[in-house]
């Protein structure tokens, strides 16, 4: 994985000093909250319901054991012993004091981590495929391109006061595991006639106006990646709406101009920028690629021993095909039955650090589904790994099943939320563990948001739940038919909402319709697409 050189380190250290100074000026009363807010946000510091919240960047979701250990230390030293992994592959801490914020950033900088641009109207942490560099189905490891763009977007002088936040995702497979087309810019590395290049999808997103990004360029040569990105951003910075916060994302600009006109403007700007020398040389991309070479993975030639039936279940659900024979990627569930999706204690983080060092070439990945991946595990080591995960409460065999719920922090933590998300996730995972239907249902992606901002990706759930405020009480709308995979689609609302207990029953009712109607080999989503909304509505409301 990438390692800082003297330049990267100096930049992060300077940022810590800058933020320390800004915090001191705020605490001394020299900065108003209005002036301070954009500055603290660009260092990941929010003010949430109960305290300040710090979001730490995990670039493209990749980190090593030493970094995970520092995340554990921070949880204990400055927070309350745990952290929350997010749908953007980051971690956030819920109980931070402003007085400690700069010290935390300094601790992070010692292990080449930071919170730069994890909030604010700027280019955010760049996300990627959690199986990058390990998956059998990709044309290249997408992370070097993400790292190139990470550096380009860090402290970008022109694009730090955009109309709204800006999220970029880079993948390199036809199979989309990162919700690529639901980003402001989704980049897919592709191969054409033996050459690698980048497809650019621009103007996707969730939030109150969900949109699937259209393809605006089918092939950007690798030595024009930065320039093309710069053109996309400049058109947005100049013409994105600033009159209405809710219409300020690039998806609205692309939608209002039309993809064709937006593309025309980008191409014009791109033609101009090509002469401006903004593109790093290919040697820089090669330098970065050097950090992402495959570890030496000799084929151990052994299959996992499936004689323990519980282990066999975990193997079937929580491992993913690796490009090297004898290896798999293992999914560590942070979704124990009845647990808080994405939360991990400091002790669990240390276990993950140890396991990464012992079994996965010192690498970990954070998934957008709020789980963790050990990307390169020898099949022969899987049984020992599984036992260790079970001991730490992270061996639940539920990847992509009903219990693997994405949930935003909701009204328990978030100042924007209208309803609680976590208790709904807890009840649903308990219900389906108790009634035994989880296994029968197979792949079923349930996603819960506590408000219309859609941090819990409810638009993209096979089943989505949206919490709303109905006259001061929590109410939950049910949505069906979304997907954030390569067959991206947006879920539709079934009808009137439900209360806290009613929504759990409603999810079970929808699941039962699927179990009744499905044909051989169909997932929930496939059945929904075939039979449509009507049978579900009938079961839910008649």
């Amino acid at each position, binding site marked *: 994985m990438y390692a800082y050189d003297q*330049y990267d380190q100096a930049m992060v250290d*300077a940022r810590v000093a800058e933020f320390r100074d800004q915090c001191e000026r705020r605490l001394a009363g020299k900065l108003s909250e209005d*002036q301070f807010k954009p500055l603290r946000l660009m260092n990941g510091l929010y003010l949430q319901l109960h305290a300040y919240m710090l979001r730490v960047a995990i670039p493209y979701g990749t980190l090593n054991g030493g970094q995970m250990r520092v995340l554990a230390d921070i949880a204990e030293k400055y927070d309350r012993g745990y952290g929350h992994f997010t749908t953007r592959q980051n971690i956030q801490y819920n109980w931070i004091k402003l007085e400690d914020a700069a010290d935390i950033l300094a601790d992070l900088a010692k292990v080449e981590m930071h919170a730069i641009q994890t909030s604010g109207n700027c280019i955010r942490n760049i996300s990627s495929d959690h199986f990058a560099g390990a998956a059998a189905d990709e044309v290249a490891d997408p992370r070097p391109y993400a790292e190139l763009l990470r550096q380009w977007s860090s402290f970008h002088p*022109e694009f730090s*006061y955009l109309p709204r936040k800006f999220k970029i995702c880079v993948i390199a497979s036809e199979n989309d595991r990162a919700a690529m087309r639901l980003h402001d810019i989704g980049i897919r590395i592709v191969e054409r006639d033996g050459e690698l290049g980048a497809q650019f999808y621009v103007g996707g997103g969730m939030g109150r106006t969900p949109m699937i990004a259209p393809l605006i360029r089918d092939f950007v040569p690798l030595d024009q990646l930065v320039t093309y990105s710069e053109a996309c951003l400049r058109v947005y*910075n100049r013409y994105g709406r600033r009159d209405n916060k809710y219409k300020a994302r690039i998806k609205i600009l692309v939608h209002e101009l039309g993809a064709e006109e937006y593309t025309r403007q980008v191409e014009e700007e791109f033609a101009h920028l090509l002469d401006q020398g*903004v593109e790093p040389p290919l040697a820089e991309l090669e330098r970065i690629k050097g950090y992402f070479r495959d570890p030496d993975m000799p084929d151990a030639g052994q299959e996992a021993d499936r004689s323990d039936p519980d282990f066999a279940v975990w193997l079937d659900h929580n491992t993913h095909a690796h490009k090297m024979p004898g290896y798999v990627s293992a999914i560590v569930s942070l979704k124990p039955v009845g647990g808080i999706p994405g939360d991990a204690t400091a002790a669990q983080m240390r276990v993950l650090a140890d396991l990464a060092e012992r079994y996965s070439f010192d690498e970990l990945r954070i998934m957008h589904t709020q789980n963790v991946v050990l990307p390169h595990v020898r099949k022969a080591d899987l049984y020992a790994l599984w036992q260790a995960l079970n001991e730490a409460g992270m061996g639940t065999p539920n990847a992509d099943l009903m219990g693997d719920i994405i949930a935003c922090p909701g009204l328990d933590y978030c100042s924007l939320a209208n309803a609680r998300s976590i208790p709904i996730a807890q009840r649903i995972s308990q219900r389906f563990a108790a009634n035994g239907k989880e296994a029968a249902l197979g792949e079923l992606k349930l996603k819960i948001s506590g408000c219309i901002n859609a941090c819990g990706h409810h638009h993209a759930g096979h089943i989505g739940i949206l919490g709303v405020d109905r006259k001061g009480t929590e109410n939950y709308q049910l949505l069906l038919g979304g997907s954030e995979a390569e067959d991206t689609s947006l879920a539709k609302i079934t009808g009137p909402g439900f209360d806290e207990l009613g929504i759990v029953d409603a999810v079970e009712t929808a699941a039962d319709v699927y179990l009744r109607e499905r044909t051989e080999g169909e997932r929930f989503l496939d059945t929904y697409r075939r039979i449509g909304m009507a049978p579900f509505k009938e079961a839910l409301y008649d």
Partner: protein
Amino acid sequence: MTEQVPLRLREDEACMEPAVTLEAFGGQTNAVAVRIEPGEDTRELLPHLDRLRRIDIAFPAFTDGRGYSAARILREAGFTGELRAVGDVLVDQIAYMRRCGFDAFDPDASLDPDDVEAALNRFPQVYQSAADARTPIWSLRHQ
């Protein structure tokens, strides 16, 4: 708006002519200073840059970042006159403004010169090529 320019990072003598609006500039061909508002297209000025001595770019609110693009576009087109950031210009944004080509600042609330100095020197290097002369890190790595 003050008469004095509180902060200039250029050696030449300040052009103190009043700036005309972009609209007025269209009909008033002898103006040497013009003021660009956030919603206006800076590129309308490009055919006339050789006779402009100063361009003011307005920041009604520091959170409105359109002026950064406007400044860079002018520098990319070869404008060498004074580029002045006017309005809600705060010390925490000034380094980015400098990188986009601004070399004069006329803030609503005066800036402490020491704070400005510190802000401009905060980051030892830069990651991108922009409108200033700084060499990006990617270039330093491959010299």
